[in-house]
Structure formats: C-alpha cells, structure tokens
C-alpha cells in the first residue's frame, strides 16, 4: 500500500459522505488500512444460518443409500431431468448452483463434505456459537476466530475486517477493530450536526469508535454502488427469494454483495469480510430439485456470481468459505423436510482456491454408518479448512492457528494446499 493510495482514499471518502470538513477525522488511525499484511489474500466467510441440508446442496448421488433415504427430497443423478450438476462419480451439486458448478469446472471451487465443527448437539444457537467462536464448547468465548486472526495482523489499529450487516456477528467480534456496513434508506446528516454528534461521543469510547467506522465504511460503499453499471448484471435467479426472505430482499442482498466487493477491491481496504445468510432451516416442504431450498440456493449462487464479477481482478486473490452450523437428518422427516442433524457440506470458492475437487472422507449413508443412526457422520473438522485458508491468505503460522485463532485445537490439523501458492 502506498501513501498515494491512502490519500486518494481520504479524498474520495470525504466526498462520498459530503463532509469535506470532516476529513480530519480520518487520520491513519480511523481509516481502513492494511499495513503489516504481507499477502494480498482476501477471505470472505459466508455464514449459512439455520443448518444447511448438505445432502441436498451437494447430493452424493452415487451413494447406494442416497435415493431411498431421501425419498422425494432426493436430487436425481446427473443426466436425469432436474438432475444434479456432476462433480465426480459420487457427488454432484444442486441444480440451482449453476455459477458454483462453473467455478468447479474452472478449478476454482472445492466441495467440502461430511464436515462439521466440534459441536455435536443440535441447537442452532449453540452450533452457530461454536462455528463462529472457533472454540469447541458453546458460549466459551466472547471473540470469534476471524477476529483473533486479525488481531495477529492488526498493526496500528488498521481495520482489516468488515461485517456486511448492521451489527457484527460473533465470528468478527473481539479486540481487533472491525467495521460493519449495511444498506440504508435514510438521508445522510449535514456536516455540522455530524460534527456535534462526534464531539458528543468523544468521551464514549464505544459510540465514538462505531460512528467513525460507520462513516468510513459508508464512503467506500458509496463508490461501489456508483460502479454497479460497470459490472455484469446478475443472473435471473436473483429475482427469486434471496436469503433475506422478504420483498426487496433480493435487491438489498445484491447491493450488499456489491458493497462487499467495493470494500475488498481496495488496496488499503479490509482483507476479511463476513456476510450472513439465513433461511436454511428446512423442517417442512424443503423441496428437491425445485422448491424452497432450491430457490434459496439459486439466490446464493447468483450472489456469488455478482461478487465474482464485481471483484474483477481481486477475485484471483479471494477465497470464499460458505459454511453452516451443522447438517440435517439423512432421512426426510414426516413433513417433507429434514430435522437438525450433524455433518453437512461446505464450499470453498474463489480465484485463489485450488478447486475442481471434493474434499471428503465419505462415511457412507448406510444405516450403520449414520451418526447416532440418523445423521451424516462428520469425518472432517471444519477448522482444518479454516486453518488452511488463513495460513495462506493471512500468512498465519500453525502455532498461531493452533493456539490463538483456534485455541487448543492441535488435533484439527491444518489442511494444506487449499490455496494457490
């Protein structure tokens, strides 16, 4: 990062919020900045809240038990009508995941399957806590693994992390300062009022920090939305239900993805971002190749497509991890859905990813192989994947990963070779 690029940022930032008089706010302490990070790597973590049905998102159509277990929820094998998109003889992708399948073919997507965190019960809230905190027990940490990774890189208070949402989820909470951003329909404040509120907050460390972060983030996001005409338009799937699951949700989701890209594109911007999606808790009428889950997957897939095109050349340096708190029952339940389970699928996608392959030690779906007789047995610790990403994208050592980022996690060995050298 050069001095010039920072100065350019300051100018644009100030214009972006129409507050030239405030540019003094952005001393080096308050602006985003990435000194001390050697690598250009970008990490995006997309949390899929609600427990994704991995057996539908990435159907193991070649497993002899699959079709019978899943019944009407089964995704037909590749080649059949509405069939899975082929990966290898055993696995496919849900037919909604068109962009992700393209990335697989281009060697930029790795499917991770039969994976789980160390959490083995079936509460969403505890499961998400473990997924985000990076420690083995729920509610044992007030900080998240991404934040602890940033703490190791966080020279001079540079904002290396951003949460795409009004509030910061646990995975990004902690000592390292991070920002958050979400679309707003409200009008911006005039300079004088803003200055007075800034003064009013100056003795309140939490509020003053938050306000400064919000202003800096807004400036960058505003640039991203201005550039949206330049980027390729999203596939049609985006007109369907976005994970936000409400009218206008799809548009807001796209706006958020574009903002995400504009943060990550900057040389002096954040290196790590987290985004949340929800609506994966498919207890009833889940659908198979079409239906409820299919629509959500399509929206997710289209959002990734938008992210890829909006990132432009930075996509090459980017690794996106999509993961969920746990999987769902292997068999369908009584209401054409699935209940809380254990192992699920995760996806690693991006220009930096060594893809075109499946990372799984497949346990099989035979009755004797299922975890507690009902769930996909987890054979891969998600932390191994997370460590593999951070090791290369943020240049963190195994010691740092095993003791600080994921405390006392030596048994979950970093998976090597996930990211292009």
């Amino acid at each position, binding site marked *: 990062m050069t001095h010039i690029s920072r100065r350019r940022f300051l100018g644009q930032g100030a214009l972006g919020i129409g507050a030239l008089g405030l540019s003094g706010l952005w001393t080096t302490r308050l602006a985003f900045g990435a000194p001390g990070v050697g690598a250009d790597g970008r990490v995006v973590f997309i949390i899929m809240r609600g427990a994704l049905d991995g057996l539908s998102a990435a159907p193991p159509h070649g497993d002899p038990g699959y079709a019978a277990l899943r019944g009407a929820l089964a995704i037909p094998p590749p080649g059949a009508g509405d069939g899975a998109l082929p990966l290898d003889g055993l696995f496919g992708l849900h037919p909604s995941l068109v962009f992700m399948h393209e990335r697989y073919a281009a060697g930029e997507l790795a499917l991770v399957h039969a994976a789980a965190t160390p959490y083995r019960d079936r509460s*969403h809230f505890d499961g998400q806590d473990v997924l985000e905190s990076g420690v083995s027990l729920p509610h044992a940490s007030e900080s998240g693994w991404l934040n602890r990774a940033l703490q190791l890189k966080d020279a001079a208070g540079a904002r290396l992390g951003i949460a795409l949402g009004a509030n*910061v989820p646990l995975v990004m909470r902690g000592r390292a300062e991070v920002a958050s951003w979400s679309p707003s329909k409200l009008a911006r404040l005039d300079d*004088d009022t803003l200055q007075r509120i800034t*003064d009013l907050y100056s003795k*309140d460390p939490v509020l003053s920090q*938050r*306000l400064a972060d919000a202003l800096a983030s807004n400036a960058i996001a505003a640039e991203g939305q201005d550039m949206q005409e330049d980027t390729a338009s999203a596939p049609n799937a985006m007109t369907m239900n976005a994970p936000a699951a409400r009218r206008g949700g799809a548009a807001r989701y796209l706006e958020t993805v574009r903002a995400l890209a504009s943060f990550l594109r900057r040389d002096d911007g954040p290196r790590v971002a987290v985004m949340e999606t929800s609506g994966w*808790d498919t207890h009833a009428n889940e659908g198979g190749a079409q239906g409820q889950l299919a629509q959500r997957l399509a929206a997710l897939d289209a959002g990734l497509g938008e992210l890829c095109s909006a990132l432009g050349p930075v996509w090459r340096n980017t690794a996106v991890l999509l993961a969920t708190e746990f999987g769902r029952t292997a068999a369908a*339940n*009584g209401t054409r859905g699935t209940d809380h389970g254990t192992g699920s699928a995760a996806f690693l996608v991006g220009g930096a990813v060594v893809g075109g392959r499946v990372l799984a030690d497949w346990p099989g779906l035979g009755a004797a192989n299922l975890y507690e007789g009902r769930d996909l047995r987890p054979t891969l610790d998600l932390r191994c994947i997370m460590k593999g990403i951070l090791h290369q994208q943020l240049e963190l050592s195994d010691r740092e990963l095993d003791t600080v980022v994921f405390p006392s996690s030596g048994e979950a060995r970093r998976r090597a070779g996930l990211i292009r050298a």
Partner: protein
Amino acid sequence: MRYRVMADTIAAAIATNRFGLGARPGDIDAIASDPRGALHGQLLGPAPVLSRIGLPDTASILERVAELRMQRKEAKRGLSTGSPGEAAAQPAVENLPALLRPIYVDDAAARVQFAVASDRAFLERLVHFWSNHFAVSVDKLAVLGIAGSFEREAIRPHVLGTFQELLLAVEQHPAMLLYLDNAQSVGTYSEVARKLSRRRFRDGTAGPKIGINENLAREILELHTLGVDGGYSQADVTEFAKVITGWSIGGGQGRQHGGDPGRFFFRAGLHEPGRRRLLGREYRDGGHEQGVAVLCDLAGARATARHIATKLCRHFIADDPPATAVDRVAAAYMGSSGDLPSVYRALIDAPEAWVEPLAKFKTPSDYVYSSFRALQLPLPDGPKALAPFELLGQRNFSPGSPAGWPDRSPDWDGSAALLKRVEWADQVGQRVGSRIAAPERAAQTLGGVLGERTRQAIGRAESGAQALTLFLASPEFMRR
C-alpha cells in the same frame, strides 16, 4: 418537586426507561418519590387487553386462509376443465400474502400504538419479553397473519398468571404449532400412519411419507423451558416429539375434517400411542393429556426457573446478569410455583437492578418506542407506524429465529446500526424539532441520568431541529 434529590430521579429514570418502554414527559416526576413502588403498582389489577375494533382472532384468520385455498383450488379446476369463457369469468383469486399482509400491518401497528400510549409500560415490556421468549416470526408465511393474534390470545392474558398457564397457552396456539411445524407431525405407529401403510401394501405404491417432526419438541426444551444446558438428551427430544404428535389445528377437508376450524385440536389419529419415558419420568398414554403432563413438569423444573430468571435478569438488569440476582429470581420462581408476579417482584426488588443506570444498549424497538414516548409524537396509521422499526433493523414480529431477538449490546451496537439510528434521529429532529423544546424534554425524560456534556450540547445547538437530534442521538438516550 424540583428540589428532589438526584438519586430519586436516577432510580425513576431506571424504572421508566429500563423497566418501562421509556419515560413520557411527567413520568419521572410522578414516580420519583417511590420508583420501585410504582413498578409494583403496575402489577396490580388485570392484564391490559389490546382490544381494537377490526382485529380478528386467529380462528377467523385461518378460516379465511382455508377459504382462499379452496377458491384457488376451484379456480384451478375451472381453468383446466371449463371452456375458455368460463375460465375468464372466474373472479381473480387473491394470493395469500395479499390477504395476510394487511392483517399483519393492522395488528403490528395496533401493538405499537398500544405500547407508545401505555400507562403500564413495565407490563407492556413484559408482554414483549414473553412474545420474544416464545418467538414466532412472520418470515414464515404461515405465521404472517397470526403473529399479532398469537400475542393477544396466548401471551397477554397470562402475563400476570403462572408460567405454566402461559406455556400451555403458547404451545397449543396455532401460530406456534405452525411456526415450529408440529401441526403436521405424525406418529409412526399412529392410527393414520398404520392405515396408510396398509393401503400402500395393497396397491404396491409408496404413498406420501409421513412421520415425526421434532422441531417444536426441541425448541420447547431448549428455548422455552429447560434451556440448552437444562439436562435433556436427543432421546428426550425424540420422545417428547412423539408425545405431542396430534397437537394440531382443527378444520380440514374430507377425512381430515375435525375440531373447530382454526383452533387447537388434538388429532388422536395422528398421535403416537404408548407410554413414553423422558427426563427420568414415565408418562402413561393419555392422548392429549400426555403432552400437558410433560409441559406441567417442565414448567415446574428447576432448570426452567433458572433459564427464565437468567433471561429476565439479562433483560432488566445487565447483559451479564449478576449471579446473586439470578439466584433470587429463580428462588422466587420455585417458591411460588412459577407465579409470574412473584417473579417480577423479585426482579424489582433486586438491588443489582438499581446500581448502574444505562446498563443496557437499547434495541431498535426500545429506541423507537422510547423516542415516540419521550416526544409524544402522534403515531401514523398502518405501514408508516412500522417503518422506523424496519429501517433500524427490527421489523415487527420477525426475529430471525425461534430463539427470538438477541438481548446483549454486541448484537445491536454495530457501527452501521448506530449510524442508522443517528440518521433517523436527525430525520425526527428535522420534522418536529421546531415544536419541541429539546433541553426541557431531555431533562424530563432522562432525569438524573442526563449528563452535563449532553445537556450542554443540546443547549448550544444551532436550531430546535439539531437540539432534538442531539438529544435522541445522545449516549444517554441510546441506552436504558
């Protein structure tokens, strides 16, 4: 009045702003001589009823849903069999969201208006607390029209009753049975399942797969009663799910017909027969009574008392509630067999609640309610009354999950969330700032909590609009 010592108006500010939904002008003065007594007083007399002409009950809303479904089915049939002329003559059948959304808006807006006008705002906050504890969300279409009637029918009447009454009302309300998918849960060895499998055997085809859905059973144990560390296992969840098979909703067509349409109905034919053993006790097969017995035991469990006490103390005292307070509130629960007013009294009497003013960061809803109450703004009708909640990130009746909205500062104090609040405060300031004297209003509604820095900033503002914005954006008004 104005010679009252500072300490009183601090306690009065805690009573109105943290226990209540925000002080209106005059509220703090009115209770400053005895803030705790004022809260105790709100627990006397029957729970307030939200009655407003035109708010339909759950049964009639669900009947309209059923009618609409019939009409659509018939319209479809007409289209496929009738001549083109007949098809065109079919009246346009409205879709489900178009039917339900106006009901949702009316109900949610009535609730907002009720909260803003309430003289017993502590009680109103408790209603909202329980609605959030027993969360249903309109993100699920089946709940869109009935989240409001759920609160009016299952929560409000029991907010001054026992926890057991509240629990039984909630778990048998159609909104909960639909939200957590129990209405369709079928016992594997139930009469209906056995009939179906016999038929399947005869005609050789695999019929529709039916069976158990364990969603409601799990969330009752984890979220509504014992809590996630309350000592239950997966086997308990599965057994409990079997116990409450058949807990469903009346109405239906043909063979499925039964019960009163749109009301709780125990469908004996769907119930898994047999004794069940869970949580160390055995429950004989008494049909519907089997589930009632389990719920009553859950309501009386020590783990439930702790879980409820912890959540109440977190809501009314601090994000990390002091263990001493939790112990006392839990003891009040056990000592009174879950009599809720006794539990609330222990909460009011907890000295820990009165030590630290501004201990809680307001949720967006808290923020909007307290703004409207402090400023005595006339509330718009319909969707406009709901707009601020959605803008600030807490759309009415739509917590993201069955766990309800979270209740700790880090869940709400993100930088983007804060900026939205400030922007909204600015909008309000510009709209009504010229009509309201902000310095006086801030003193009236923040009492002894109003700090010197904020008082000066408001006093030095360049306009009434800016003064009001600074009041609403102040650190003191962001917290409760």
